[in-house]
């Protein structure tokens, strides 16, 4: 837990502050971890809060598109796999909110910022899930893209975030395999099932590429985040890695990826590929995606419907001397009201 003096990020005098900054830079320089009680520049703290909270929110909002198919899973085994997966996402949200809390804000405050639209979540979850194949495609492509983004974050400079990411990545990797295995099984089924898989891949391929963010020359925060060791690779590097990884997987599966420009470039040793529709990306980021309003309304309703339960838990904890506190207790102290854009 941070103490109040580290929360301000302020040192008593300029000389001392310069010394602290040098110490911080040295930690980042030698790839060590910055820990919650260490001094850190205010900009670093704010960038991390934005990024880790956005990640936590993505896990929680990300429960909805796949949760949409739990009630209709076509076999009991698939129902169990899907329910367990969506439950894992809630668990990831928990670790990541806890990691964010080490930087100051409480989970309650973070939730309020999400619901007020002051913090973002990954735009991929603003796309609808329209068939059971989408459960597999999200596992394969969306979780696959998330893994490409997140594996380097296991080495991120902020300790609690990096450690949370190690566990998250292991579970995401498992989810990716399960998703791919669902698609592989469906491809061995009927013609209708194969068509369902192809249609789903056609819809999710481009949004999956968008998950790496805008091209590097339009990503203003990347340089600073890399200098601080928060981010480890550029958007375009990771996107390339994802495409190179996915092409042989698509071939093994027997589906085509919907990009006429996609081909192997012998000289570069990488695949060339087309650009996603960045206008659509910006529309979704700005809140005009197919499901933005629906996802936030769902979360808001669940949160509001649960208010009386959280109040009851607090009241009961007070009466019983804090012996039994099943729900969270909001923590006072840190508040940020700044609206920040996704990139």
């Amino acid at each position, binding site marked *: 837990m941070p103490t109040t003096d580290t929360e301000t990020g302020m040192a008593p005098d300029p000389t001392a502050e310069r010394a602290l900054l040098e110490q911080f830079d040295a930690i980042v320089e030698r790839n060590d971890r910055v820990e919650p009680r260490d001094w850190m520049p205010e900009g670093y703290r704010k960038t991390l809060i934005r990024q880790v909270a956005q990640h936590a929110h993505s896990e929680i909002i990300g429960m909805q598109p796949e949760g949409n198919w739990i009630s209709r*899973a076509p076999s*009991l085994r698939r129902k169990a796999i899907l329910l367990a997966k969506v439950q894992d996402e*809630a668990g990831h949200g928990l670790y990541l909110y806890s990691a964010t809390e080490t930087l100051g804000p409480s989970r309650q405050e973070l939730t309020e910022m999400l619901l007020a639209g002051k913090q973002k979540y990954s735009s991929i979850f603003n796309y609808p899930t329209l068939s059971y194949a989408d459960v597999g495609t999200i596992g394969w492509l969306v979780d696959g893209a998330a893994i490409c983004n997140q594996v380097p974050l*296991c080495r991120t400079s902020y300790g609690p975030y990096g450690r949370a990411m190690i566990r998250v990545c292991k579970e995401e990797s498992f989810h990716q395999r*399960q998703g791919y295995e669902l698609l592989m099984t*469906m491809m061995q089924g009927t013609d209708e099932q194969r068509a369902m898989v192809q249609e789903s891949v056609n819809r999710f391929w481009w949004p999956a590429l968008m998950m790496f963010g805008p091209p590097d020359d339009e990503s203003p925060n990347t340089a600073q985040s890399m200098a601080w060791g928060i981010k480890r690779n550029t958007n375009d590097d990771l996107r390339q890695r994802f495409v190179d990884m996915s092409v042989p997987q698509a071939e093994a599966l027997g589906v085509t990826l919907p990009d006429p420009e996609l081909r192997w470039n012998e000289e570069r040793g990488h695949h060339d590929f087309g650009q996603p529709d960045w206008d659509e990306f910006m529309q979704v980021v700005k809140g005009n995606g197919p499901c933005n309003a629906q996802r936030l309304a769902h979360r808001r309703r669940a949160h509001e419907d*649960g208010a009386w*339960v959280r109040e*009851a838990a607090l009241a009961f904890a007070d009466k019983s001397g804090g012996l039994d506190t*099943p729900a969270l207790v909001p923590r006072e102290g840190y508040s940020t009201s700044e609206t920040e854009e996704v990139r």
Partner: protein
Amino acid sequence: MSHSTPDPNAAAGNVYDGLLEHHDVAGDDSQWAFGTDFEDPLAGVDTTVPDDVDAHELATYCLMLGDDALVLSQRISEWCSNAPDLEEDIALANIALDLLGQARLLLARAAAADPSVVPTLPEGSPVPAEDALAFFRDAGQFRNLRITEVPNGDFAHVVVRTLLFATVRLSLFTRLAESRDPVLAAIAAKGVKELTYHRDYAGRWFLTLAQGTDESRRRLTAALAELWPLFGEPLSTHPVEAGVAAAGVGVDPAAVADEVDVVLEQVFAVSGVDRPGAAPLAGVQGRTGRDGLHTEALSRMLAEMQVVARAHPMGKW
């Protein structure tokens, strides 16, 4: 304080590695928690029915217990992403997953004991027996208690329903662990641990809501009043239950009624809640959930649950 990072390349390597190797053909099944092909939940288990036991009766009994778990699991899983807090979302998903696991074992046990209970699918359909039972029976063929199927209400509703259901089922399963059918005994023994947690979870929340705020107490007592009429059914004896109990493979619910009463009385007393006095919900011509006579909610729930499976009777999942 700072700490050195563990070898970053090792961490990066193991997540990227080997996606294809495990997938392009059958691959290495040990990598998968649930296997790559359909796994018979009773694989390797001797499913021979004891000589003097009526196989059809045993299968019907397994359907009753399996349908209870399946239908309530479906209802509780509707809470996913809708719970009051993340901890509760995770806990409810756990309960739904446990019940789903019990359902799979019990439906598979029913099919193994008497294959004639499994609906007939088109020639060559790859749908396994547990899924044929879950997805290709109509509401009138489901043998679950009506308390498991009624629509969800607020959080107090799921707390009360889980408490009532888990209390009865824990008592039943504790005795069922001594069943002369070794398969049922093993399923029950596994279920006891799960149901102990379900009852504990629901009991704690029952107390919390009863003693929390005026609003939570009002909602809790409303949920209890709503569900209580459905609580006659779980403790009354169906002829199939009487038959399997007499054969030493099943448990007569009436035999656990006193034990259930003691447990609930304790929860009510600690919580300061009065036991409701409402009469049990009647059946139709004496028929209730165990006979395939349900509330209006079940067929609607099944329509949603079965829609994808029924559209693809030759499908592989």
